């Protein structure tokens, strides 16, 4: 088949939801809808486990993710609700997506964003930063 098959936004997000619902790997990242009746699958809760061997290890971070009408052409809006100190995260918890995922592609998804955040925890510039008390929220 020669045509360029593009999975439209809603079906893409349904696929993502079903994958998260099945659970995957070591469950170091997880996500689900804030409102299970959100027909446009816009607002998500997510959680990531701090990466082993970093100051983030053993901590569980909660996030809010907003997949807008133009997702996944444009990246989602991502915000930590658990306090964290990282170079790509503002003082209010907002993730700088240009910094986290430069060159965002249509094939990138919520799981990719969460995995990139775990990768970010491994960077030396972030390992050096002092962290807020565990489980403190914004």
């Amino acid at each position, binding site marked *: *088949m*020669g*045509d*360029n*098959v*593009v*999975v*439209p936004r*809603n*079906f893409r997000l*349904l696929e993502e*939801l079903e994958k998260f619902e099945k659970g995957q790997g070591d469950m170091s990242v997880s996500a689900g809808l804030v409102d*299970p*009746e*959100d*027909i446009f*699958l816009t607002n998500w809760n997510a959680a990531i486990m701090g990466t082993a061997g970093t100051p983030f290890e053993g901590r569980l971070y909660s996030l809010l993710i907003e997949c807008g009408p133009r997702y996944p052409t444009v990246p989602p809006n991502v915000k930590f609700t658990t306090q964290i100190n990282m170079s790509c995260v503002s003082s209010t918890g907002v993730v700088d997506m240009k910094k986290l995922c430069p060159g965002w592609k249509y094939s990138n998804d919520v799981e990719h964003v969460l995995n990139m955040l775990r990768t970010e925890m491994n960077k030396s510039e972030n390992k050096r930063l002092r962290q807020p008390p565990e489980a403190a929220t914004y």
Partner: protein
Amino acid sequence: MAASLPRRIVKETQRLTQEPAPGITATPYEDNLRYFNVLISGPSESCYDGGQFKLELFLPADYPMAPPKVRFLTKIFHPNVDKLGRICLDILKDKWSPALQIRTVLLSIQALLSAPNPDDPLDNTVAELWKTDPDAAHAKATEWTRTYARAAA
């Protein structure tokens, strides 16, 4: 891009737009010819009578070897439709055959509105009410149709 759309899909789309099935319209989006905006009228003499239900349908890369993906966007009280509009219908899953078409799928969904199947539920609370108190279930389906599926003027 349109030129490389598989002939089967081009053919099906032409038939859908030129000879639409009664009470069903399916229009491909200009920017994605595998993605359809679908409207199904609630069958008369069903709880969904008078309603206009919006759905979306997508033909995945392996269509017609794999079934189309389709779901309701209009809120509907039906034992075989879940809160995200996903539909429990055998031909969308293990009973799919490449001999079926978009048209047959949409006709089957329309038939599912006439004949809900609470024994094969996707939404258990809806199915429970359907079985224990059918009158209340029908009333609720009628009410939701009036509230959420009122035909656009």
